[in-house]
C-alpha cells in the first residue's frame, strides 16, 4: 500500500491546521483512526446497539457477538489464553496490582520496576507499597538503556518484574526476551507494558512467556476508552476479583456473592461495547498491514530527522536502533520546548513536549522534559522533511 493511499485511509490527515497540512507526529500519545474504525462504531450505534450478555433479543445477541469478537481477535492475534478487556493500559496495570498483587503479595515482597517505566507502571505499585508494604526496586537506566547487570541483581527474592517493552520517551525496545527468561529462571512473574510495542509488532504472548501484558487500543488505531490485559492460565487462576457489579457475578445474595470464572469476572458493569467493535475493526485492519515494512520506513524517516537535528546542534535522546520505535526525543540548548513546539504547531506540525509521564526517566537524563516526534504507519519521509523544514523555520525565528 503506497503512502498516499495510507493518508486517504485516515480522514483526519486531510485536515489543515493553522493553514498548513496536518503533519501528525504525536503518535506515541495516541494514533489516528482509519475510516473503517470510525465506520464500525457508527454502524454499531446505527444498527446493533444493545447491552450485552444474558440477552435474548436479536440486537443484544449481535452486540454480545460484537463485543466478544474483539476478545477472540485479541486472543488469536497475540496467542493469549486470556484477554481481559479494560479501559486501557493504565487500568490493566492497576488491575494486576489489585487483582493479582493484593491476593499474592504481602509485606516485604519485592516488585522490580525500571526507571524507564511510564507513570502508569509506577504509581499503582507505589500505591500498593503504601497500602501493604511491598518493596519496590528500580532497575537503573544507563545511556538510555536498561542496566542488565543491575537487573540481574534486583531479581534476588523478587516476586514480580514490571517492565516497559518499548519506551514511550526514547523509543528504545528493551531486551524483553532476556528480561523474561531471566525472571522465569528465578520463578518470578512478569508484567509487560506493551502500550508502545503492539502498535509496531505483533507479539506472540505465550511464546514470549510473560504472565501479563497490558496495552491500549487508542495507540494502535483503535478508539479511546478501551484496552486489554492478556494473562496466561496459571496466573489468571491466581487473580481475585477487583471491581464488583454487573456481569462479573454468578450469584448475589445478601450474605455474599460468587463470581464468574472467565474474563467476565474482571469486567464489572456494562462493558465498552462500541469500543470493542471499533477496536476489533482496528485489529483486523492492522492485521492486514505489513507492520515490519512500515516500521523500516518510519525508522528511516525518524533517523533522517534525528540526523538533521544533531547537525543543528540539538540534543537527541533516542538511539533509533533497528528494533526501536520511531520516536525522536530532543531538546534545544536554549529554546524552551513549549516555545519550540508551539512554533511547530503554527506550521501544522503536531509534536508533544513535557515529561511524557516518565518523570523518573527525565530525572535520570537530568532534564525536565523533551520535545517528542513519534511516527506511525501513515507517516512518511514527506512528514520527516516537513518537520526538518519546520525546525529550521523555528531556529531562524529564534535566532
Amino acid at each position, binding site marked *: 500500500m503506497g503512502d498516499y493511499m495510507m493518508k486517504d485511509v485516515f480522514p483526519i490527515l486531510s485536515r489543515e491546521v493553522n493553514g498548513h497540512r496536518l503533519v501528525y507526529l504525536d503518535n506515541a500519545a495516541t494514533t489516528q483512526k482509519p475510516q473503517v474504525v470510525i465506520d464500525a462504531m457508527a454502524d454499531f450505534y446505527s444498527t446493533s446497539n444493545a447491552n450485552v*450478555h*444474558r*440477552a*435474548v*433479543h436479536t440486537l*443484544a*445477541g449481535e452486540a*454480545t*457477538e460484537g463485543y*466478544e469478537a474483539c476478545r477472540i481477535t485479541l486472543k488469536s492475534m497475540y496467542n493469549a489464553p486470556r484477554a481481559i478487556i479494560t479501559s486501557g493500559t493504565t487500568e490493566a496495570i492497576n488491575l494486576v496490582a489489585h487483582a493479582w498483587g493484593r491476593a499474592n503479595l504481602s509485606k516485604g515482597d519485592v516488585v522490580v520496576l525500571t526507571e524507564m517505566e511510564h507513570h502508569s507502571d509506577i504509581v499503582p505499585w507505589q500505591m500498593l507499597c503504601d497500602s501493604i508494604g511491598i518493596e519496590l526496586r528500580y532497575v537503573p537506566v544507563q545511556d538510555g538503556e536498561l542496566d542488565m547487570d543491575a537487573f540481574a541483581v534486583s531479581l534476588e527474592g523478587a516476586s514480580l518484574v514490571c517492565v516497559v517493552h518499548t519506551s514511550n520517551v526514547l523509543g528504545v525496545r528493551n531486551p524483553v526476551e532476556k528480561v523474561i527468561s531471566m525472571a522465569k529462571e528465578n520463578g518470578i512473574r512478569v508484567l509487560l507494558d506493551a502500550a508502545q510495542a503492539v502498535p509496531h509488532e505483533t507479539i506472540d504472548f505465550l511464546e514470549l512467556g510473560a504472565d501479563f501484558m497490558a496495552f491500549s487500543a487508542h495507540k494502535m488505531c483503535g478508539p479511546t476508552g478501551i484496552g486489554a490485559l492478556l494473562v496466561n492460565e496459571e496466573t489468571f487462576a491466581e487473580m481475585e476479583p477487583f471491581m464488583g457489579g454487573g456481569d462479573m457475578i454468578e450469584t448475589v445474595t445478601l450474605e455474599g456473592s460468587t463470581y464468574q470464572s472467565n474474563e467476565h469476572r474482571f469486567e464489572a458493569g456494562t462493558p465498552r461495547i462500541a469500543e470493542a467493535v471499533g477496536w476489533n475493526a482496528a485489529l483486523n485492519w492492522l492485521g492486514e498491514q505489513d507492520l515490519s515494512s512500515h516500521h523500516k520506513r518510519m525508522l528511516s524517516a525518524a533517523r533522517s530527522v534525528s540526523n538533521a537535528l544533531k547537525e543543528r546542534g540539538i540534543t537527541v535522546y533516542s538511539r533509533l536502533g533497528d528494533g526501536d520505535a520511531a520516536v525522536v526525543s530532543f531538546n534545544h540548548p536554549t529554546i524552551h520546548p513549549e516555545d519550540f513546539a508551539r512554533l511547530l504547531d503554527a506550521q501544522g506540525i503536531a509534536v508533544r513536549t513535557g515529561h511524557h509521564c516518565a518523570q523518573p526517566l527525565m530525572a535520570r537524563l537530568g532534564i525536565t522534559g523533551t520535545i517528542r516526534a513519534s511516527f506511525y504507519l501513515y507517516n512518511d519521509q514527506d512528514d520527516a522533511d516537513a518537520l526538518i523544514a519546520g525546525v529550521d523555520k523555528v531556529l531562524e525565528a529564534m535566532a
Partner: protein
Amino acid sequence: MNWSPAIQGLIEEFQEIESKFEKLETLMDFADELVPLPVEDWNESNLVRGCQSIAHIEVELANDEVILKSAADARMVEGLQGILTIAVNGNTPDKVLELTPDFAEEMGLLNTLTPSRSNGFRTMFDMIQNRVKELK
C-alpha cells in the same frame, strides 16, 4: 457430512420455514420428542452448566443403543433436547460419537437462538458425547 435419515429429515423440516416465529414454534413442538428425566434424577452431575434456564440430561446404554433422557424448565430448551433425542436415541455409541453438532447449524437453528442458548445446545451435545465415551 452424510446425515442419518432422521437428522436429514430435521434439517429439511427446519430449512423450509422462513419466519423466525414459526421456526421457534416448530422447535417447541419437538419438546414432545424427549424422553423425560424424572425430577428425582436431577443432580449436579447431569446439570447443564452455562445455560440460563434449568436443564438436565442423562445418557444410558441399553443393548448397545444410546438413550438420552432430559428435562428443562423452558420449552425451547426442551425442544433442543427433543432434537438431540431424535439425533441420538436408538443409535450405537460409535454412531453417536461420529456425529458433529453441525447439523443444528444446517437446520438454521443456532442463529435463531442467542449465543447463550446456542452455547447451551453445544454444551448438551458435548455432554452427551462425553457420557457415551465413559459408558462405552
